[in-house]
């Protein structure tokens, strides 16, 4: 269903084994995946299904045991600024102000100062944190920290946002607000998003496409397209039908395992 669009991400036969003591754990069975540019994909599955591992392989933080992945045809060989990870616990640099955190990527490229500040301010505005530009991460709420983390990867001009349960540590209201903001940012920037979650509702609310993963070893069990128009109404029958469908796919694997 890629409508002839260029695939930005290609994952071919990626497996991952971890050594745990003398044992080896197979975290990922061969995974194949193609994601077109600009798509919003949610990876969902129970904990231990390898969804975070797959994300970390794509980020370049983990090397696959076999197989490989490529971005726009270029093989992934480590972390790169074309992909930006948004961690659940933010991973902001605590000694830098909000503005310095957001300007970190541009600063690495040796841009002139005004250019760095201009970019930082642009993305500060995008996530609505102009007033907090000179605060340190410790002085921010969880939701604000995650906004900074998103702005930080966007300011670095990432093509793909890799989000590892980014809203998992937030309260329900803040989460809902950030989900909406993320959708707006996605629509405005056309960035590709791979979003790991274990909330079915979150996946159905956000994604163009939900990949249901199952454990032992981790693999993509089903690939569900969500064609509901946005903004999505979580109380509509269509929404709930999809939610039930994905929940069923998730739990059926749990029972099997």
């Amino acid at each position, binding site marked *: 269903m890629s409508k002839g669009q260029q695939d930005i991400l290609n994952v071919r036969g990626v497996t991952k084994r971890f050594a745990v003591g003398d044992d080896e754990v197979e975290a990922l069975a061969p995974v194949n995946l193609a994601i077109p540019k600009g798509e919003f994909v949610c990876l969902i599955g129970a904990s231990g299904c390898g969804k975070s591992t797959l994300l970390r392989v794509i980020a370049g*933080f983990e090397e696959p045991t076999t197989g490989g992945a490529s971005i726009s045809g270029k093989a992934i060989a*480590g972390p790169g600024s074309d992909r930006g990870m948004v961690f659940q616990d933010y991973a902001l640099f605590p*000694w830098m102000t909000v503005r310095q955190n957001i300007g970190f990527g541009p600063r690495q490229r040796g841009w002139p100062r005004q250019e760095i500040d201009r970019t930082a301010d642009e993305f500060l505005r995008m996530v609505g944190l102009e007033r907090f530009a000179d605060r340190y991460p410790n002085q921010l709420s969880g939701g604000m920290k995650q906004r900074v983390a998103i702005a930080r990867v966007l300011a670095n001009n990432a093509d793909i946002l890799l989000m590892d349960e980014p809203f998992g540590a937030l309260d329900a209201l803040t989460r809902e607000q950030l989900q909406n903001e993320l959708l707006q940012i996605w629509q405005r920037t056309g960035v590709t998003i791979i979003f790991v979650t274990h909330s079915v509702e979150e996946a159905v609310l956000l994604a163009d496409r939900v990949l249901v993963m199952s454990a032992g070893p981790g693999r993509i069990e089903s690939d569900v397209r969500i064609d509901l128009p946005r903004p999505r109404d979580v109380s509509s029958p269509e929404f709930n039908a999809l939610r039930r469908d994905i929940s069923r796919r998730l739990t059926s694997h749990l029972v099997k395992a």
Partner: protein
Amino acid sequence: MSDHATALPDHADAVLIGATATRRRKRQRLESLRAFVLGAGFPLLLILIWDRAVAITGTRLIPSPYQVAVMMYDFTFGGVYDDAFSGTILTHVWKSMQRVYGGFFLAALIGIPLGMAIGRIKVMRQLLDPTISLLRPIPVTAWLPLSMIFFGLGPNAAIFLVFLGAFYPILLNTMFGVRSIDPKLFEAASMLGCSGSAMFRQIVLPASLPAIFSGLRIAHGFAWILIVVGEMTGVPTGLGSVVMDGRTLSRTDLVITGMVVIGACGFVTDRIIVAISNRLLSWSPQHRE
């Protein structure tokens, strides 16, 4: 419940907030006054006990606080005893400071980069960690004879001893600080295009700065402790040599004067270090004092 608060008009809120802020400021002022009274009162009490104890026992071995105060005055301004120590305080403090900070900065200069390298680079850890663990338990005083052979009778031996005492706390705290950096920060930095030596400068150093500063502070304390040992190596000036001379001359008032000046120097310079670290670590509230 907060329902009532939100029902109040805005200016009422502002008045409420203003009132609580004033009350908070008042409480803070009272709190700091109490800290000062308690903090300064206790040493005064100790001096009182010392004074009474000397008077009651009638000992001639320990001078009274008053005699020490007179010695202190003479040591600072001269004009009482007019001996070799009169009005010489600045010379001794200056000499000791040179040795304390010579050793201390040398320890920081070597300890911080080495600690960062050992903390971050596995080969360095494998190469150096066992040796450091072997050398560390050796008391600095045990190095005294060797340091006198290496550096002769002079200030260099003192600097070396201060260096040794200051080196390990700085090294170990830096290593610990680097090792306890959240690995996600490295991942975040590398995906944002940071690598190699830029990683050391931009991530490793600032992230381990709280641990480095607690190491520097401990080391700085040791440096002042070791100056007496260091200046036992036969240097003519310095606060440590004043204490040693006082012992040789059986002038306990001079010994105590030297001790008080060392304590005061250590106290004041420690406050300076705390002020610097509070400034540099303002991003990290849990490390503020």
